[in-house]
C-alpha cells in the first residue's frame, strides 16, 4: 500500500514577504509566532510603509510559547487579534476575508493540522498559490480522515491508528485540501488482525 511519495502532500517553505502584495494578512498558531515575527521584521526592513497594512490572527499557547503574542505586537504590526482556540480564529478570519480586497497576501505558520483549516478558508476565497505562503512548525501530528466511516481523528502521531468505528487505519500521505486531512485506510482488510508494528512517526 503506497503511503508515502504522494504528490498531494502539501509542500511548505520558510515565510518571506511578498513585496508585490498590498495587504499582508498573517495567521499563526502557537510556535507559528516565531516565523511571523521574523517575517514582519523582514517586511518592515524592506518596505516600512507596508506595516500600516499588516494584520495578524493568532492562537496563543501560553504554556508552550509564553510571550509570543507580545513579541508579535512589538513588531509594529498594525492590528493583532488573539484567540484562545482555533475555532474562534477561523470564524473571525472568514469574516475578515469577506471584507478583504484583491491585492491581499496570506501568510500562515503553525502545525499542519491548523494550517490545513486556514488553507481551506483560502481556497473558499479562491486564493491561488501566488497569494498564500505557509511555513510548517510545531507538531507533525496529523488529522486523519477515516475513508470508511468518514470520521475525523485529531492529533494522530502513529503510522497506524484505531478509528472510533473499530477499524485500524494506515495513515497515508494522500492529503485532501477540502477535508484538511490525510486519508486513513483500513490496514488489515485483506488479512484481518494482521497489522504492522505501530510506531510514533508524526512528532
Amino acid at each position, binding site marked *: 500500500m503506497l503511503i508515502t511519495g504522494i504528490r498531494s502532500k502539501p509542500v511548505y517553505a520558510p515565510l518571506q514577504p511578498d513585496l508585490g502584495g498590498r495587504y499582508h494578512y498573517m495567521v499563526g498558531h502557537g510556535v507559528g509566532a516565531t516565523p511571523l515575527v521574523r517575517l514582519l521584521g523582514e517586511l518592515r526592513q524592506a518596505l516600512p510603509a507596508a506595516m500600516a497594512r499588516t494584520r495578524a490572527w493568532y492562537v496563543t499557547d501560553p504554556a508552550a510559547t509564553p510571550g509570543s503574542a507580545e513579541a508579535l505586537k512589538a513588531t509594529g504590526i498594525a492590528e493583532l487579534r488573539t484567540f484562545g482556540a482555533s475555532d474562534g480564529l477561523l470564524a473571525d478570519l472568514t469574516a475578515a476575508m469577506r471584507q478583504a480586497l*484583491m491585492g491581499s497576501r496570506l501568510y500562515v505558520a503553525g502545525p499542519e493540522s491548523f494550517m490545513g483549516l486556514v488553507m481551506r478558508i483560502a481556497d473558499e476565497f*479562491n*486564493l491561488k498559490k501566488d497569494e498564500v505562503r505557509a511555513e510548517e512548525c510545531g507538531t507533525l501530528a496529523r488529522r486523519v480522515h477515516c475513508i470508511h466511516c468518514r470520521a475525523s481523528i485529531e492529533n494522530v502521531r502513529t503510522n497506524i491508528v484505531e478509528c472510533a468505528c473499530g477499524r485500524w487505519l494506515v495513515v497515508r500521505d494522500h492529503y485532501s485540501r477540502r477535508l484538511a486531512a490525510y486519508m486513513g485506510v483500513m490496514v488489515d482488510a485483506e488479512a484481518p488482525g494482521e497489522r504492522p508494528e505501530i510506531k510514533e512517526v508524526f512528532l
Partner: protein
Amino acid sequence: MSQSHADTIRVRVAAIEQVTPQIRHFTFVPLDGGELPAFSGGSHVIVVMRGAQRVYRNPYSLMSSPQELDNYQISVLRVDPSRGGSAFMHEQVRVGSELEIAHPVNLFPLEKLARKHLLLAGGIGITPFMAQLHDLRLTHVPYELHYATRSPSHGAYGELIGRAEPQRARLYHDSDNRFIDIEGLLSQQPLGTHVYVCGPAGMITRVLESARALGWPDSHVHYEKFSPPPTGEAFEAYLERSGISVHVNPDQSLLEAIEAAGVDAPYLCRGGVCGFCRTDVVALEGELVHNDHFLSADEKASGKAIMPCVSRARCRKLVLNL
C-alpha cells in the same frame, strides 16, 4: 493535444450585418446541418480564407451563445491597412459563401472558482465577452462589464448589452470624455475577483500595470490580445526536417510562409500567446525579432526558440527544426 487545425469544419455564411462602419457581424451555420462543436465563452476559431494570392488564417472570438450550437457568430473589424484577412472578410465574403474554420479553442476562459468576474472591454475587444456573458448569466457569481468605445456609433454592441445587462454593464465613450477608471476599479475588488481585459494594446498594458501596482497576483489577471502579426523585413528560413527553404515576405508571418510551402506546422492562437507553435532554432546568423508574449526574456535572449505565428528574424541564415 493533437493539432487542432488538422481537420476543419465547413460552414456557410447565413447572415452578415454591418454593425458599425468598420465592423461586420457574420453568422456561420454548419454545411452538413446539425450542430457545431460545443465551446465555452472566450473561445476563438481560426477562419481559413483562401484569397487569390494567398491563404489567410485569422483568429476571431466566438460571440454567440455557447448554449446555441446551430450557429457560430463572429465580428470582424476592418483593419486599415489590412494585411488581407479583414479586407477579405469585408469584401469577398457574401451571404451563402462557404468557409472553413478550425475547431474552437479557449485561451481566454473564465475562472470557474472565481468569487467575482470583472470584464474590461475596449472596442472590438468586446467579442469574447459576448459569449462569456451568456455563460455568466447561468451562474450565481457576481460580474461586471465595463465597455469602452470611441463613440456610441463605434460601439458595436453597446445597445444590445445595455438592454441585456442594465445593472451589470457600464458603457464609456471617448467622445463623451468618459473613460474606464481602471485604478479605481482594481483597487476596490473583493478577494477572489478575477479581471479579464480584451482591447487595444494600450488598454491591456494599463490594466496589467495597474493590477500589478495594486498587488494583484498574476493568477487573477487574464488578457487577450488580438493584434495581427507584425510586419518587417523579408527573410529566409530553412526548415531542416522538411529540407526546404521558405521566403517570408514583409507582410507575411513566418507561420504563413511555412504553411504556404505546404508544411503543416502546429498553432492554436496565431497571436503569440499560447506557446503551441514554439519552434526550436537550430542555427542562426543574425537576430530574432520576438513579438510574442509567451517566451521568457531569457528564452528570447538565448535565440534557441521562436514563435513563428508572430515573430520574425533579421538574419543571413535561420534554420528551424520543422
